[in-house]
């Protein structure tokens, strides 16, 4: 039995009682075995969390890795011909994601070298670290150390070797770093809402990851978001009026981006991840966070409070949200690419049958890229950016008065603005014609 007394200092106090092959039996407590394999001693992490002292180290580890592998295979997240970029922040979740992806790659390499025909290539892995120091100048001192640590960590994860891309967040504005940094600061300063500022930074972060991924030939972006992170996201989205687009953000796959995002740790909880880091000695680095006083922080504290009351609450929240209908882009798109192995193509087809066939094209908010609810759009808006954006971004990110709005638009990265122009050009007649063109018999509109 795991030692339950809070005063116990050592992690595995019961284990040391074995003497000459005989297990010392406490009058009150008996030594138990791992509930899964029934062979080994259970691990105690002593972190006060649930399920402590039930599984041995091996079974615990294989549980977590198993969830990762299941997510990867059943959603065709990583296939032999892919080139995968892992977003690495230095935190526990992304450290575990990186570790697991590396182990998957090692296994693939082993199989490749052992196979006779070498038909299945080994997928490529790169690592991206986003340097946000331009947004948080106070952190500047810590960043170079963090980057050095990231570099050495990535180096240690070879063979197979992995490229490291250190991406300054201001790179979304262009290559001139001084001008870009300046523009970033100006842009963030023009957002008055605290939460809006935090969220805008998240959107820019994703843009910078997308940029480095597509510029370097990656076709998948691995993000280490776990169940706990998604639980908070469910509540923040609800509270910001983003109920329509919520289901797009919490699936295993998000292919609305140029480089599809995959979440292989979606089914793992924070507690498992931190325990795994402890178990495997995976080091992490936590950059001093800008003090967050907005809604995002309030929700995190709320979820932590709920977790105290019931440790399964995060899972329930995500499970509920998972019952919402996802979007057509929440799956890896099928492909006729001959490079993709047949097995993968078959799996994609089988998986995609689960979704209803409606391939409706959605309009997206240029700032946060969320699918727009039809009822949100207002047509008589003088400002194109305002008209194209979702109601949440309109409230918490866009400036409220007309002149500031124009200036704000000029500060946004080109990629966001170009979407607005595209949105404007498509009028309803053209849009409809595009949708039905396969059914039209005559090319000439006037003949109708």
């Amino acid at each position, binding site marked *: 039995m795991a030692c339950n007394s809070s005063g116990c200092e050592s992690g595995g106090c019961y284990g040391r009682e074995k003497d000459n092959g005989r297990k010392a039996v406490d009058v009150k407590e008996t030594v138990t075995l791992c509930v899964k394999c029934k062979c080994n001693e259970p691990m105690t992490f002593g972190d006060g969390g649930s399920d402590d002292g039930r599984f041995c180290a091996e079974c615990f580890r294989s549980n977590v890795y198993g969830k990762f592998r299941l997510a990867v295979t059943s959603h065709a997240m990583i296939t032999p011909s892919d080139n995968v970029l892992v977003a690495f922040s230095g935190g526990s979740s992304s450290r575990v994601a990186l570790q697991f992806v590396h182990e998957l790659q090692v296994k693939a390499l082993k199989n490749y070298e052992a196979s006779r025909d070498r038909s299945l290539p080994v997928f490529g892995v790169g690592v991206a670290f986003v340097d946000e120091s331009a947004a948080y100048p106070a952190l500047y001192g810590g960043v170079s150390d963090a980057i050095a640590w990231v570099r050495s960590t990535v180096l240690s994860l070879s063979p197979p070797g992995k490229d490291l891309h250190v991406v300054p967040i201001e790179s979304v504005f262009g290559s001139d770093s001084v001008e870009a940094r300046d523009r970033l600061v100006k842009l963030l300063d023009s957002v008055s809402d605290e*939460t809006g500022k935090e969220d805008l930074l998240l959107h820019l972060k994703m843009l910078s990851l997308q940029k480095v991924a597509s510029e370097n030939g990656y076709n998948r972006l691995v993000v280490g978001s776990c169940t706990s992170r998604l639980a908070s996201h*469910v*509540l923040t*989205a*609800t*509270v*910001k*009026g*983003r*109920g*329509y687009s*919520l*289901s797009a953000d919490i699936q295993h796959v998000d292919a609305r981006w140029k480089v599809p995002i995959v979440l292989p740790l979606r089914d793992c909880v924070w507690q498992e991840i931190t325990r795994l880091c402890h178990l495997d000695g995976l080091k992490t680095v936590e950059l001093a966070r800008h003090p967050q006083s*907005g*809604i995002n922080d*309030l929700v995190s504290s*709320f979820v932590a*409070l*709920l977790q105290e*009351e019931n440790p399964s*609450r995060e899972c*329930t*929240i995500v*499970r*509920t*949200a998972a*019952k*919402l*209908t996802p979007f057509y882009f929440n799956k890896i798109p099928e492909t006729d690419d001959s490079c993709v192995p047949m097995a993968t193509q078959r799996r994609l087809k089988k998986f995609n049958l689960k979704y209803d066939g409606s391939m409706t094209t959605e309009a997206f908010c240029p700032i946060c890229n969320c699918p727009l*609810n039809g009822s949100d759009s207002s047509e008589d808006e003088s400002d194109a950016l305002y008209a194209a954006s979702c*109601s*949440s971004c309109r*409230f918490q990110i866009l400036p409220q008065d007309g002149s500031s709005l124009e200036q704000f638009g000029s500060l946004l990265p080109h990629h966001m603005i170009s979407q607005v122009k595209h949105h404007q050009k498509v009028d309803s007649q053209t849009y409809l014609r595009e949708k039905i063109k396969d059914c039209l018999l005559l090319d000439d509109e006037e003949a109708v």
Partner: protein
Amino acid sequence: MEASEAKSKKQGASRLCCLCNQRRPVLKRPKTLQQICKDCFYEVFEEEIHQVIVKNGLFKAGERVAIGASGGKDSTVLAYVLSELNRRHSYGLDLFLLSIDEGITGYRDDSLETVKRNELQYGLPLQILSYKDLYGWTMDDIVKMIGLKNNCTFCGVFRRQALDRGAALLKVDKLVTGHNADDIAETVLLNILRGDIARLSRCTSITTVYIREGDLHTYAYFKKLDYFSTECIYSPNAYRGFAREFIKDLERLRPRAILDIIKSGEDFRIATTTKMPEQGTCERCGYISSQKWCKACVLLDGLNRGLPKMGIGRARGGANGDHHKETKKPASAGRSLESKQCGSLDF
């Protein structure tokens, strides 16, 4: 002279009601943070309710309408405003007050006195139904048996049915309740937290005037309405409390977030197949039910048999399943059980 003139001008310039620009503002409206005078506030408040009623075609002339009245601020404001609008806009409605006595000493007995006063003040006939008469149990009895966890489940289920029974007794066509925007927002959050996707889709589909709780307080205060303002003594452990605390904190950061929660609730992409359960009737009492027995009967049966956990949490075979076995027993076995059927009304 000039100095005092300038002073009063300065006061006048920045301190006139935003809406009428005539009277002195006496409050900052919680919903919009506008500075407005009393009369304008009454007007916008009452107009908002009137618009929802008209736009949604909630009532027809000649209908009998029961107002769920607890004596609290929500139902008091509702009763006051509805009777006022009924008069002003000639809705032609026959209004009644319907109050439920859950049998909570030191809480409900006090608030009922308020409702009795409302009957006189607003000239609306009052009907009181008690849990004791309907179910044979008061909340005091129930809490004595089950303690302070899950008692809100019992009370909520019993009250909803009691309101329906009362409405039938009064032969009314519609029942209105004083749920406000904050209540709905709490419910949306609760349903997310507790995994009830079906309820999540239903809770925002009923026609509601999304009045913020702050506005209700303000209206009741300025109109000097007579209401009872204490928390139910059995509620401290209610799970809803978590959601309520969170919403209060959220409101401080961003007041419009409460309405945003409701918007999210309305926008959630929920498959239509999950929306409505099949409507049937309870085999035991004839009340509307989606299962063999309505929830009230299940809970009541549990209470009567000394199994208070029945009907709480996930059903294992279900009380509805268990019941099937029980019917085979001879009827004489349950001495006072048979008499404790819920309600004596035919449906």
